[in-house]
Structures are given as C-alpha cells and as structure tokens.
C-alpha cells in the first residue's frame, strides 16, 4: 500500500480502479505556409467546429452542474471570438507566413502567460481557460477529439491537471473521484467536484505512471489522502466508512429540516453535545436544533495557563453567532475527577469523583469563575446563549452562584460593557439535586440531567472499573425513576428539563423519555438524525397505553 497526501476540496470516500488521465501532448511544428489565406480559412472552419463543441459542452454542463458553472463554456466561446486573440493568430500567420497550428499555439501561450502574471488568484486560474481553447482548436485542426477519456467502469481519475472542458466531458456516472497533481481549490475541477458531490483532491503528490494506473485506489476526502493498492485493513475500514456515510446521507436527505414531533404531536428538542468549537460543523451538518451541552473544558485543558476573558469571549461569541439564534447551552468549567489540569495545582485526592471538582472549584476560586462568567454574559449579547452549572447539590450553591453573577453584572455595568441576559440552568447529576429538584426548579430556568454521573452516584458504581460491569445496569429503575421525577418537578415549576448524558442517546429509551415528557435530548451530533427518526415514528399515547 502506498499513501499520498493532497488537499481535499470535496469530502467523501471513493473506492475503485485508478485511471491516469494524460492529455495528448499536441506537438506543434512550425512550418512555412505557402498560402497564408488558406491557412486562415482552415482556422475559420476549425473555430466554427470548436464553437459547436463548446455549445454542446455548455448544454451538457447546464444539465449536470447548473447555469453558473456552465457559463465558463460560453466564456470559452467568447474567447475564441475575441478580437485580440484572432488578430494575434492572423498576424502570426500572415506576418511570418507560417502554419495556423503554430500561430494558435503561440497565441495561446502568450495570452495564458498574460493571465498567469496577473496579481489575482482567480485571474491566474483563467490561464488554464486560454490553454484549453487553444488546445481545442489544435485538436480540431489535427482532426482529433479534444480530451475524452472513455472508460467502461467507474474510475478514480488521476491527472496532472484537468481543464474545465475535460472535467465536463467525462461521463459523470463513470467518475468516482478527481485527483489532480496541480490545480487549486478555485479550479473548475474543484468546483465541479463539489457540485457533483464526489470526493476530490488537488495538489496530490503522486506519480502518473504504471505504478498507479489501473491499480485499486481509495480517495479519502476527509483526510485528503489517496491510497494506492490499499491493504486489507484499510480497504475494510474505508468500505465501512463509505457505507456509514451513504446511510447517513440517505437519512439526512429524508430527515433534514423535519420537525422533531411524534405522530401524536408531542415535540422534543434535539440538541447536540460538543466538546470543542471545531465540532460546530458537525452540529450544522446533522441539523441539530441547538447545542445542549457545550463543554467549556477544552478551553482550559488545551492550555498551559488560564484562558483569559477575551479568548473565551471570542469562542462563545463564535458559537452563538454560528448557531444564529438557536440555543447554545454552555456548561461552566467542569474539571476535577477524571479531568485534570496542571496549572490549577490541585492536591491529590483519595476519592476525586466525590471531591474537589466543577462548581466546587468555581465557588472557591471566584477569580476563575468570574472570568468565565464575564465572557459568557458578554457573548450572550451576540446570540442565544444559556449558562449551565455542573455538580449542584444544594440551594446554597445556587444562592452563591447568583451572588457572583450579580457582582459580574455590576462590574460590566460599571465598565459600560454590553451583555445579554442568558438563561441559567443547572445540571442534575447528583441524587441530592434530583431529590430536591422541586425546590431547585424555583431558582433556575432549566434542568439538564447528566445521566453519567447521576447513574454512578446513584448506583455507587465506578464506571472506570471493569470488574463492576456485572453489577452495572444503565437502565436501573432507580435512575429512570429519578429522571421521571426531575422532569415532573421541572414542569410543575414551569421550567423545561432535558437529558445531556449518554443515556439521552440510548435509542432503546427514546420512547420512554418521550413518555416521561422530557423536553430536550442532547446527544452527540451523529445521533441526532437516528433519534429524530424514532421520534417521528412514535405515538406517545399508544406507547403509554401499551405499557
């Protein structure tokens, strides 16, 4: 197996035979022409034929990739009819008394050099267009078809570079992927690949010879790699991913933009859990209605020192703006226990899961907490941010949080810094919080149930210890009863309650949660559409009756 890197311009996975596509090198000889006028007559009829071909290409492109992308072939026709281009050809033929092939090649070189020298990436790319039309003319003059690649099976096309006309002429059903050694993300090939939704790489450093041609290849548009003669493991892994992507795409097509509502009209919010600002793309792709858990720890864990207010503000603002009015629930710092951070200088603990962590750190180190709150309140002026506090066990903690929030707002007011009024909610992840959720519900805007910790604390089972697996029951009735109770208490106080732990993504429980009246499920982005499917197919009334 050989692996080559390129720059991905369109994602996806293609597996198939590689076909190295080489242009016929048009050897142009300079010969004396006895009769320049008959040379120019050949030029005129070649031009006519080239324009006819371009019209066909325009029609083909119009159907396959739309008017905006087809327009380039109209531009090519205009280039062929361009005054300067034609004058140049005529001058060379008449002035030097040479064959028209030479005049066309020389003119094409001159004009493409002019575009190559321009200080604009887009215009530099147009040098390829000038070359393309000149080569088309030469092919017609030589009585050949320009740039066609006939193949019997779908292939991965590997080429030095592809002219737009070459890309369009390829039979769309016969191309699995484009890989070019040259070319840029702005090239027509890249644009067409995106339109056709097939994986494509540019700038791939692979040899265009028999070591590649005809061999089995895999193009991975996610990593920008092409594998030649892949080994069994890689092949299996990629086949699996290809299958997954195909299924996901199919699901997406059917479920995108559908409302999360059951057959009998019960709505549920399907949000995404993310652990990094980089995950926003996944949130959008999977059509999440909002972010239900934005773990802010990455801001701290990836650093050597405390992240400052501005740095945090920018990240929160970006999330709020990207989600454009959809709710973004950001959980305040939740380190300690299994997530340690060197510069916090925390003492060793005998029992970290029951130790100094999350809100307990924030309340004893108000300078760290205030920095984050200032960033959150400021960012909430730019979108629909909600703040969520982890590891709550008592009313007293909420009162203390409110005091700190009050100080933060007073400071921002004094500094005349704009801020929003974010919703503030708490995680219900301790049995204590669940049991007093009726009281807590009067103090906050929402609940989000963290089932991982809630289960571990309720069952007194350490999830990291494999020896305890036989005692562990993720669906333990104690946990399910607690969830049901928390939701009931929330509704009684007029607030909403969701689930952001792993259990929220457990598809065998989705109906049960709907029956409990859970308002929101926050799951990893990849789980959103499968759960939406269940929601759409569920009749909550019937489910309750059948229990």
């Amino acid at each position, binding site marked *: 197996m050989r692996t080559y890197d390129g720059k991905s311009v369109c994602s996806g996975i293609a597996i198939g035979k590689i076909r190295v596509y080489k242009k016929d090198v048009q050897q142009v000889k300079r010969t004396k022409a006895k009769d320049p006028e008959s040379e120019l007559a050949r030029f005129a009829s070649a031009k006519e034929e080239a324009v006819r071909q371009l019209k066909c290409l325009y029609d083909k492109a119009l159907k396959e990739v739309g008017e*905006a992308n087809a*327009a*380039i072939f*109209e*531009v090519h026709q*205009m*280039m062929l009819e*361009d*005054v*300067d*281009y034609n004058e140049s050809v005529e001058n060379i033929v008449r002035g030097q008394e040479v064959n028209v092939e030479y005049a066309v090649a020389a003119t094409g070189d001159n*004009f493409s050099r*002019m*575009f190559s020298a*321009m*200080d*604009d990436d*887009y*215009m530099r790319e*147009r040098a390829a*267009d*000038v070359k393309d039309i000149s080569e088309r003319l030469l092919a017609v003059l030589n009585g050949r078809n320009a740039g066609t690649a006939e193949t019997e099976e779908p292939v991965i096309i590997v080429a030095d570079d592809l002219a737009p006309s070459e890309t369009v002429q390829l039979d769309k059903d016969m191309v699995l992927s484009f890989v070019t050694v040259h070319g840029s993300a702005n090239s027509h090939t890249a644009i067409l690949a995106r339109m056709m939704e097939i994986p494509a790489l540019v700038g791939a450093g692979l040899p265009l010879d028999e070591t590649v041609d005809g061999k089995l290849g895999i193009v991975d548009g996610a990593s920008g790699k092409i594998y030649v003669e892949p080994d069994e493991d890689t092949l299996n892994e990629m086949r699996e991913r290809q299958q997954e992507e195909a299924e996901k795409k199919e699901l997406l097509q059917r479920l995108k933009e559908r409302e999360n509502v059951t057959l009998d009209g019960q709505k549920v919010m399907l949000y995404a859990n993310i652990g990094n600002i980089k995950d926003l793309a996944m949130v959008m792709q999977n059509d999440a209605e909002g972010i239900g858990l934005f773990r802010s720890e990455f801001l701290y864990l990836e650093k050597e020192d405390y992240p400052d207010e501005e740095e945090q503000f920018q990240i929160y603002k970006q999330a709020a703006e990207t989600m454009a009015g959809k709710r973004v629930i950001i959980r305040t710092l939740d380190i300690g226990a299994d997530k340690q951070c060197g510069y916090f200088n925390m003492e060793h603990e005998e029992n970290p899961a029951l130790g100094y962590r999350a809100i307990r750190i924030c309340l004893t180190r108000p300078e760290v907490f205030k920095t984050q709150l200032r960033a959150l309140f400021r960012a909430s002026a730019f979108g629909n941010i909600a703040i969520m506090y982890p590891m709550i066990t008592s009313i007293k903690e909420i009162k203390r949080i409110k005091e700190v929030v009050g100080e933060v707002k007073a400071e921002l007011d004094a500094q005349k810094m704009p801020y929003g009024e974010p919703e503030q909610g708490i995680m219900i992840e301790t049995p204590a919080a669940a049991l007093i959720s009726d009281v807590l519900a009067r103090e906050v805007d929402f609940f989000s149930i963290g089932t991982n910790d809630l289960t571990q604390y309720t069952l007194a089972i350490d999830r990291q210890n494999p020896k305890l697996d036989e005692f562990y029951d993720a669906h333990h009735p104690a946990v399910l009863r607690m969830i049901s109770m928390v939701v009931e208490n929330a509704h009684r106080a007029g607030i909403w309650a969701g689930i952001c732990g792993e259990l929220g993504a457990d598809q065998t429980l989705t109906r049960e949660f709907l029956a409990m009246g859970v308002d929101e499920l926050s799951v990893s982005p990849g789980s959103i559409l499968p759960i939406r499917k269940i929601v759409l197919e569920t009749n909550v009334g019937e489910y309750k009756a059948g229990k």
Partner: protein
Amino acid sequence: MKEFKYVITDEMGIHARPAGLLVKAVKGYGCTVKMGKGGRTVDCKGIMGVMSLGAKKGDEVTLTFEGADEDAACEAISRFMQENL
C-alpha cells in the same frame, strides 16, 4: 463622445462571467466602447482584454463611447454595470 466612471461593487470584480456578459452587451452597438483602469485602456468588444484589466471590487473604471449610437450605448452599459458589477 460619451463617458462615465464606475466603481466596481461586485465581490468578485469583473470575473469571467460578467466580462462575457459585458462583451455581449457592447457588441449590440456599433460605436466603439473602451474601458480604462489605471492608465490602461482596452476594447470592450474582446473578453480577453476586459478580463486582463483585472478590475476588482473598489476599483474605478472609465468607459468611453464613440460613434453614431453612443448615447444609447452609454445609457444601456451604465445600467448594465449597475446591475451586474
């Protein structure tokens, strides 16, 4: 002779597609139409020339019209620039 100045507002500048449309529009008139930018002037009836100016967003171009139908051409092309560039 008629003349007007125009500042490009299109994000992409005079790229291939609008250049093609401009050439097409100009060819509908008999008068000569020239476009200048920064000391260089090109014939608007050739797409290569128009593109070679490399006019980008924020650039000012000057269009001149000379010939029998210059008034009509000037008016139509002025409208074209406002709508497309």
